[in-house]
C-alpha cells in the first residue's frame, strides 16, 4: 500500500517542518510571512495561468453529452436542464452540476449475480460524501473571513452562527468540522476498500485528502485543544492582506503547522487535479447548448478540405451509370 503510505508520510513530514522550525529555530517570519506570500502568489498566478491555458485552446465541435430529451417538435417536452438549447440553459446545467453534483446523483453500482445477471443499485454514497466534503470546505473557508476583516460581513457571521448552533462545546463546536472529517475519512476509506477504487487511485489522489485532513486537524487542535492567540493571528492575517511584512508576534506552533499546510495546498493546487475546481466550468460536454443543428458552431482551425467530388465519381463510373439509367452531368 505504498501509494497510501507515501503521501501520508509526506504530509506528516510537511507538518513537522514548521513545528520544528518555529519552536526550535525561531523561524516564524519565514513561515508566517514569506511562505504564505509566496504560496498565495503561486496559487493565484498558477490558477489564472491554468484557466488561461485551457481557454486559449479552441472548442472545435459542440460535443454536448445530452442526458435528456432534445428540443424537437413543439409537442415533445424538452429537458431544459439535461439537454439545454440555450446558453442560459447550459449555464444552469453547469451551475447545478457545481452546486449539487447532479451527475454524481445519477450514480449506480453494478453487481454481477448468478445467471449471469447484472443488477444496478442506486448508489448515492459518493454523491453524499463529495457534497458534504466540498460544502463544508466552502463554509469553513468562508468562516475564516473573520480573520481578514475587522468587522466581518453580516453573512459571514450568519454562517458562523448557523454552523455552531449545536453549542456542544466551548468554544462552540462547528458542525462543518465534524462533517469534513467524516467525509474525508469516507473518501479515503472508499479508495482503499473498494477494489475498483484501489486500482485507479494514485498517490496524487491520497495526497490532497491527507493534506486537507492535516489542515483540518491542526485547525481544530488550535480551537478545541491547544488554544492559540486568536488576536495575534488576526493581526498577522490582516497584515498579510494589506501587504504588510511585519513579523508575527508570539502565536503558538500549531498555527504555523496549519498555515504551512494551507500554503502547501495552495502551491500544489494549480499543478494538480485540484484544478477540477476551474475545469468543471469549462467542460464542453456540459457547458454548451445542444443546438448544433439550429445554430452554426464555428471551428477556428477548420479549413476547406479536399474530398472526392461528384465529378470525379462520375468520371470513374459514367458508363455504368448510363447503363443503369442514372442521369449524368457529362455525356
Amino acid at each position: 500500500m505504498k501509494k497510501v503510505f507515501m503521501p501520508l508520510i509526506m504530509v506528516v513530514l510537511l507538518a513537522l517542518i514548521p513545528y520544528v522550525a518555529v519552536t526550535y529555530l525561531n523561524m516564524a517570519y519565514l513561515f508566517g510571512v514569506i511562505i504564505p506570500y509566496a504560496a498565495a502568489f503561486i496559487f493565484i498566478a498558477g490558477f489564472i495561468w491554468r484557466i488561461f491555458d485551457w481557454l486559449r485552446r479552441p472548442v472545435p465541435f459542440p460535443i454536448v453529452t445530452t442526458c435528456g430529451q432534445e428540443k424537437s417538435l413543439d409537442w415533445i417536452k424538452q429537458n431544459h436542464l439535461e439537454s439545454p438549447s440555450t446558453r442560459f440553459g447550459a449555464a444552469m446545467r453547469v451551475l447545478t452540476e457545481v452546486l449539487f453534483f447532479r451527475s454524481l446523483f445519477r450514480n449506480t453500482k453494478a453487481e454481477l449475480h448468478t445467471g449471469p445477471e447484472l443488477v444496478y443499485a442506486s448508489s448515492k454514497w459518493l454523491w453524499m460524501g463529495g457534497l458534504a466534503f466540498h460544502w463544508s470546505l466552502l463554509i469553513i473557508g468562508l468562516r475564516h473571513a473573520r480573520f481578514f476583516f475587522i468587522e466581518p460581513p453580516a453573512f459571514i457571521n450568519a454562517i458562523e452562527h448557523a454552523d455552531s448552533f449545536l453549542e456542544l462545546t466551548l468554544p462552540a463546536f462547528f458542525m462543518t468540522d465534524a462533517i469534513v472529517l467524516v467525509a474525508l475519512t469516507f473518501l479515503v476509506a472508499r479508495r482503499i476498500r473498494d477494489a475498483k477504487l484501489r486500482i485507479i487511485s494514485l498517490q496524487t489522489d491520497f495526497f490532497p485528502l491527507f493534506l486537507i485532513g492535516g489542515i483540518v486537524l491542526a485547525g481544530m487542535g488550535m480551537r478545541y485543544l491547544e488554544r492559540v492567540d486568536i488576536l495575534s493571528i488576526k493581526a498577522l492575517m490582516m497584515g498579510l492582506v494589506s501587504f504588510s511584512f511585519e513579523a508575527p508576534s508570539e502565536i503558538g506552533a500549531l498555527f504555523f503547522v496549519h498555515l504551512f499546510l494551507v500554503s502547501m495546498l495552495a502551491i500544489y493546487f494549480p499543478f494538480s487535479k485540484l484544478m477540477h475546481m476551474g475545469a468543471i466550468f469549462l467542460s464542453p460536454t456540459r457547458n454548451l447548448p445542444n443546438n448544433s443543428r439550429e445554430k452554426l458552431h464555428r471551428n477556428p482551425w477548420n479549413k476547406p478540405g479536399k474530398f472526392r467530388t461528384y465529378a470525379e465519381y462520375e468520371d470513374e463510373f459514367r458508363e455504368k451509370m448510363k447503363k443503369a439509367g442514372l442521369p449524368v452531368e457529362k455525356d
Partner: protein
Amino acid sequence: MSKYAPRKAQLAREFLEKPTPLKGAQADREWWEMPVDFHDGNWCFPGKPDTLKAIGFPNPRKWAATDEDWQLPDGWEKIIHDGLKERLKKFRSLKLYLDSCVRCGACADKCHFFLGSGDPKNMPVIRAELLRSVYRNDFPMVKKILKGFSGSRKLTKEVIKEWHSYFYQCTECRRCSVFCPLGIDTAEITMVARELLNLIGVNNNWILAPVANCNRTGNHLGIEPHTFVQNIMSLVDDIEELTGITVNPTFNRKGAEILFITPSGDVFGDPGVYTMMGYLLLFHHIGLDYTISTYASEGGNFGLFTTNDMMKKLNAKMYHEAERLKVKWILGGECGHMWRVVHQYMSTMNGPADFLEEPVSPITGTKFTNATSTKMVHIAEFTADLIKHGKLKLDPSRNDHLRTTFHDSCNVSRGMGMLEEPRFVLNSVCNSFNEMPENTIREKTFCCGSGSGINAEEFMEMRMRGGFPRANAVRTVKKQHQVNALITICAIDRATLPPLMRYWNPGVAVYGLHELVGNALVMEGETPRTEDLRENPMAIAEEREDGDA
C-alpha cells in the same frame, strides 16, 4: 457461432468464477503492471496495405496484433509526441480531460466492456489514464520531481500495444461521460488515441476498408452505382409482391424537394433492408418528392472512428450532392454515429449550407426549427410529426406478432438527445412496447458492444462481452413480457445485435423502427396483408385463419 467467441456457457461460468475488480478482487496490483494480452477474438485485423495506400495512410505493411514486432516506423515516438502536442493545441476537451480527472470512480462500472470483461483497464478512468500517464510524463512542468507520485510512465512499444488493445475496446458510446461529475468524455480521448495510432500505422481493417470504399464509391460496402440501384429495385419488387404496391424511388434526380440519405447497411444488409422497405413504403404513402443519391449513398461515417480529417472528407459529400441536385433539404435515415456526425459536426466542418432551405415538412407544414442551420432532419422526427398530424393510415395490430422493446443507440441518445420521437412512433405502430430496466435505457443506454468500427467477425469474443449488459437488459424484458423484437434506430445495431441476441437471448429478433412503420402502414390499393416485410405471418392473418377454421 463464431470460432472467435467462446461458448456461452463457458463465458457465463467465467463471469461468475474469474476474480475481477467488479467482484472486489485484483486490488493488490497496479494496472500498469498487468500485461497486454492478444488472443483470437480480442483483436481486429489491421488495415490491408492496399487499403492504406488508397487513402494515403502511413506505414502500409502486413502485420498482426499477435506479432512480437509491429514494424513501427522509424521515429514513431516522436510522431506520437508531436501528434499529441498538436492535438492538445486543437482540442480544449483533450487538454481539459487529461488534466482534470479526479479519479472519483463514478465511471468505473459504467462501461459495458468493463462489465463484460472485468478487465480493470476497461474502466473508463483507466482507459484515459493509458494516455494520461504518457502525457504526464512528457508535458506538465512538475514531471521529473514527482514521477511515480503522479502515475506517469514512458512511451514504449508495450504502451502502443496496450493503446491498440484498449482504445479499440471503447466504442465511443459516452455512457461514462453521463455519470462523470466533470463531464469527462472518454470518447474524446479514444478518438485522439486512435488518430495517433493511425499516424504510425497501427489500425483496424474493419474501419479503414469502409473508409476507403466510402471515399471511392460513396458507401462503406463499396457498392458501385448500378449495383446500388439494382439492389433498391429488388426491394421495390419485394414490396410489390408483398403489398401489391409499386413504389417509385428515384436516383440522382435534380430538382427533387428532399435528398434522402441512409446508411448503406439499409440497402444491402439483413435486417437493414426491411427498414429500407419501410422508408420506401412511407415515402410512397405520403407522396414525398425525394431522391436517393448513389454518390452520397452512405449515411454512416467511419471517418469518425479514424481521424477528424477523414470524417470531414467523407461527410463533405452530403452537402456537395445536395447542392448539385438543388434539393431544399436533407432527410436522414436511422443511424447512430451518422447522427452524431450530422448533429454535432457536419455544419461546423462542411457548412454553412446556405444553398439549402430551412426544413419544412411538405405534408404537415411543420417547420423543423431545431434543424434550421444544418438543414437535415432525422426520419424519426419527420415520421413522429406525420403521425401526430394524422397523416398516416396505420394499423398497429399488424405488428401484433411482435412484442417489442426499444434499444436507444448511444449516439442518438447521448449525442443528440432524441429519446421521445422514436418511442412515440413505436407506440403508434405496435401494441406491445415494453421498456427495458431504467438504468439501461435513454441517456443511460448500453452500447450494442460493437459500435465505432469494431463490428469485425474476428473480434467476436469482445463483442459478446461488450454487448452483455445490453443483452442482459433485453433478457429481463424477454422474461417479464415475452419480448421477441428488439427495435433500434441504428444501422450498426441492426448488424451487431442479431449475433448478440443469438448468443445471449435466442428468440429475440432485431428490427428497425421504420420496418414496423412499413408493416403498419395501410397503403391505398394494397392487396390484403398477411405477412410482414420479412414474410413472417402477421398475427391478424393467423386470427383470420383460425376464424375460418
